[in-house]
């Protein structure tokens, strides 16, 4: 699971109000080269929750994302764009868990696939 995907998932247990973002409990992290495409990054940026990505990236071993992102950074700050690319697309959570920030419920990630199925009493 890439952090791009993590950025889009929420805990949907019945009654949970603050189920976003999942905390990441990593057991095995892999790095995978992805094609560097700054246009894709600029395009996707408005859809991201930046603080969630930044925090997840720290846990996954990319501590260099800034707190604030400006338009000029997105346009021509090559160093920033490389870190952004790496955090978003190249760090893979292979094994571990996603933890609901409200309830602490753990959703296992196995072979890179998060299992977000709920138990009967959670629906």
């Amino acid at each position, binding site marked *: 699971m890439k952090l791009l995907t993590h950025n889009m998932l*929420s805990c949907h247990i019945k009654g949970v109000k603050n189920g976003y973002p999942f905390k990441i409990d990593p057991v095995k992290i892999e790095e*995978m080269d992805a094609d560097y495409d700054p246009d894709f990054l600029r395009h*996707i940026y408005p859809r991201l929750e930046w603080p969630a990505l930044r925090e997840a990236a720290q846990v996954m071993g990319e501590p260099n994302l800034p707190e604030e992102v400006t338009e000029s950074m997105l346009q021509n700050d090559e160093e920033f764009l490389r870190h952004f690319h790496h955090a978003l697309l190249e760090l893979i959570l292979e094994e571990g868990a996603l933890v609901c920030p409200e309830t602490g419920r753990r959703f296992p990630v196995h*072979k890179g*696939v998060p*299992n977000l199925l*709920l138990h009967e009493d959670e629906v």
Partner: protein
Amino acid sequence: MKPSVADVRLTSYNKDVYEPSDDSFALVDALQQHDWTSFSPDVCLEVGCGSGYVICSVAKMLSQHGLRAQVLASDISSAALEATQETLVAHGVADVELIQGDLLKPLIPRFQHQVDLLIFNPPYVPTPDDELTRTDIARAWAGGNRGRAIIDKFLPQVKEVLSPRGFMYMVTVTDNRPEDILQLLSNDDIEGKVILERAADEEALRILCCWRRHERDAEGHH
């Protein structure tokens, strides 16, 4: 020219995973006929990916058209997700992300009106309702009364995630009463039509293509 759909011989499935069948092929044919020249989706999502044949074909269509999108596939079954992973690897497709979940539930809050291409080949076969509680391969096809049990859970979720310029492709058979499905979607301001009809073994396939009403009409596309 690169072949733009997945190769069945490179597609993984087993006794626990839905084998790519006439419905899967009809769906992929419909997607291939989509006008990709005026469409550059940012987010593509297949629900119930099974063997991965469909989402792998979509990934190939995207790359053939020089498009880069966030592509996700989900299924309720872990066996299906393992098969999809194998199918993607066998085709050298790297950027499809997989999620185990029930329909669109974990994705709805963050994908609010964001999905540009939503795809579902649901369990659509009419069965007695007690078939619905099985957790084996029956889950891939058992659709309960008129084959609508899963479809009717999915339909209200469509308006949550479909983007203003998005399209939803869904497999139905005539037993599901496609006109009634289109009517239900219409109540959510989602318009659509039967985009492909095909007779298969013992069933009449109807592939639906749907989109949000206002935005598109205003642009005069339909």
